[in-house]
């Protein structure tokens, strides 16, 4: 019981707390022994986002994206955008599939997409995270044109919605990992993006994002401004007889090659890709500490570093910075 003393009197704070209103002012209680029917779900994958694609909302979002999101992205996490030329001649709808490290990934990608895609793109967002309440669903539907997507599987409802939207000419931004990386290394790609590409015939554009984990990684408590890099790859389409699983494998390999390109250069990355030596996105298959170690210290660049083992290394590194 919480009490405060005011002069000679004691005030019981618990008594000041509003009590829950009784029925019918408040919600009814349920009698025992009665099956409580499941309420019609209007959150999660059942959240209806149709309103966010109507013309007035799109206009409002375009103003928001151009007037707020993009300036903030360029001010806080200025992107170095690479590979846009590969999208020349490509017309919507397109599926952009990227690695995922941060909540900043989506505003970053939307800010860097060419204009013809930018204002007619929906973002596949985790139904259980971004749409678990109606107000969150409303916020993300408006700000990012997010649509709810099951993260662990291709559910019929979310897949149908995405396919329908692609059929209507909307491009899709999707993170095949299903969530942000927990340790800095990419998680295995799910097949959803490739499945949608095979189902709808829309080209699949691999995208690699770097730098956002350092700015606002999973569990980060504050934003750390700094440069980022967005690398677009060559559009992929399913070959004759190619199924979604194989296309998903190709996609993952392409994103890994883009990551390699970001760490080294395009030519080296292509050579390693041709030789099948592209470092895997998922990192080394080793003990957790070695995987973390392999990421290198969190610095202003995402360049992979091996641990500095002695004064000679430190001196060499200092000289390189100079």
């Amino acid at each position, binding site marked *: 019981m919480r009490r405060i003393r005011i002069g000679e009197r004691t005030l019981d704070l618990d008594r000041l707390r509003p009590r829950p209103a009784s*029925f019918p002012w408040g919600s009814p209680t*349920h*009698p025992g*022994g009665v099956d*409580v029917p499941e309420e019609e779900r209007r959150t999660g994958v059942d959240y209806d986002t149709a309103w966010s694609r109507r013309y007035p909302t799109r206009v409002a979002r375009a103003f928001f994206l151009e007037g707020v999101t993009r300036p903030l992205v360029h001010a806080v996490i200025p992107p170095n955008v690479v590979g846009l030329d590969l999208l020349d001649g490509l017309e919507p709808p397109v599926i952009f599939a990227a690695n995922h490290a941060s909540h900043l990934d989506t505003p970053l990608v939307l800010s860097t997409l060419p204009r013809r895609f930018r204002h007619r793109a929906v973002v596949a967002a985790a139904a259980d995270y971004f749409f678990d309440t109606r107000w969150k669903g409303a916020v993300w539907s408006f700000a990012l044109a997010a649509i709810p997507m099951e993260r662990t599987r291709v559910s019929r409802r979310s897949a149908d919605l995405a396919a329908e939207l692609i059929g209507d000419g909307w491009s899709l931004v999707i993170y095949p990992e299903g969530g942000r990386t927990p340790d800095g290394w990419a998680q295995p790609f799910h097949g959803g993006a490739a499945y949608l590409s095979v189902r709808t015939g829309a080209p699949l554009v691999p995208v690699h994002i770097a730098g956002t984990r350092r700015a606002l990684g999973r569990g980060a408590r504050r934003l750390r401004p700094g440069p980022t890099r967005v690398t677009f790859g060559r559009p992929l389409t399913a070959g004759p007889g190619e199924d979604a699983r194989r296309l998903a494998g190709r996609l993952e390999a392409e994103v890994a090659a883009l990551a390699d390109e970001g760490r080294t250069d395009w030519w080296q990355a292509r050579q390693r890709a041709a030789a099948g030596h592209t470092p895997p996105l998922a990192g080394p298959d080793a003990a957790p500490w070695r995987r973390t170690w392999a990421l290198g210290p969190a610095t202003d660049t995402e360049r992979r570093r091996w641990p500095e083992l002695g004064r000679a290394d430190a001196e060499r590194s200092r000289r390189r910075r100079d």
Partner: protein
Amino acid sequence: MSPRPGFVLEVDRSTPATLMWHGEGYRLERLPTGARVVYPPEPLEPLADPRGAIRHVLENPVDSAPLSALLRPGMRLTIAFDDVSLPLPPMRRPDIRQQIIEAVLDAAAAAGVDDVVLVAALALHRRMTEPELRHALGNRVYDSFAPHGLLTQHDAEDPDNLIHLGVTDAGEDVELNKRAATSDLLVYVNINLVAMDGGHKSVATGLASYRSLRHHHNVRTMLHSRSFMDQHRSELHSSNWRMGRLIAESGVKVFQIETTVNTDTFPEQFSFLSKREWEWSARDRVGFLATSSALARTPDRVRRQIFHSMRSPIGLTSVQAGEVEAVHALTTENVYRQQLVEVDGQSDVLTMGLPYICPYNVNSIMNPILVMCLGLGYFFNLYRGRPLVRQGGVLIMSHPTPWAFDPVFHPSYIDFFEQVLAETTDPLEIEAKYEQSFATDPWYIHLYRTGHAYHGVHPFYMWYWGAHALDHLGRVIVVGGDPAAVRRLGFKSASSMADALEMAEDVVGRDPSITHLHAPPLLMADVR
């Protein structure tokens, strides 16, 4: 999701307050822990294509040739239809009667039938007004028949248009509408709201005269109908069946079209009235609070107009046509499919909230006699097997029971209330001493035939309707009623449900078992 069946809830501490109708309003009442609440089944899915289903049954009737085969040029065709007392509340357009009659008329036109007359099967009910006829039949039918005098309303006091067909084995006169009885084909269009409706009762009651009706609309029949909703234990049913068979033997060819409806009773804005309280959404609660507080501040007349302008979204769940008894067997199954709820055993006390409407006050006032008829007649008899309340138990009804009458629709009710009930409330005594004088009063007959008045004898029938309940119950208590009107009815008045339950203990003892009938929407208790 398929509709959930009705069920019996046992009230516990976490059960929210229970919605009870209270005339042109509703209340939330807390029932004691351990009380039972009988909830109606959810509305069945309506037929997707009612017009298609109607056309189909007209050509594929049961135990009868198709309608088109019964129609021929030069024949006399009469189409009788249920009056304004069905369905309740009046349904949204298009009314079922309109849809069926248009289909029948299409078939008649195709067969070259010229001599067609429509008859509203009023029995001793009031004549329908033009807007009511237009609502039931649609403008096309009304405008095609009414201007030529071919849309008629049965007149049970017109000696020139009645025909005596004979006397049943039980000595019952059968006197019917002459036009209907002498037609080559009588098509009857019915709406079955409760299990009592339809079957031979349609023609044998709806198109009969007082001379004929008095054989089953009497105290003895009602005391032997337990209940009159249960065909196998209803003397009312048996009497009508005897008459119906005599009608058939007399050569009257009846093509019966019966329909059943679901219990989707109230429009969307009042949907909370059909929901179980613990499933009320925030919108339902806002709807309840807003409407109940607004209604409390609304004058009686306006409140009545609001409720009587309500049009029910009820949907057609089945339609069947052909021979009367075969059709009615199917109809009854469909009524039970929608309304039956199994209840285990009787209780000491039965509570019910009475709504603003009963079959006899459409667009009018629910006067105290109709309150008695709705509670002790209709709702008490909504059982199969045994009544929900034990012999000598207590019935508690919630209704304002105003001392108010509609002088146009219910003139004889006023005198019945002022003169007859002031003397006695015993149905047998009332029947013996007063019925004849009211039934033959020329002024009431004049008002019935030329105005929109119920027949002079009608309030007696309303009282007889409750005779079984009066005989069965130890006490009737009305919650929130006009004390003077309630006293005149011979009942006790209580200001709150808690008071009424206390008063009931005087009759049935302490800690009585209580059952609440959560209707409308309508249900029928199958008491084991």
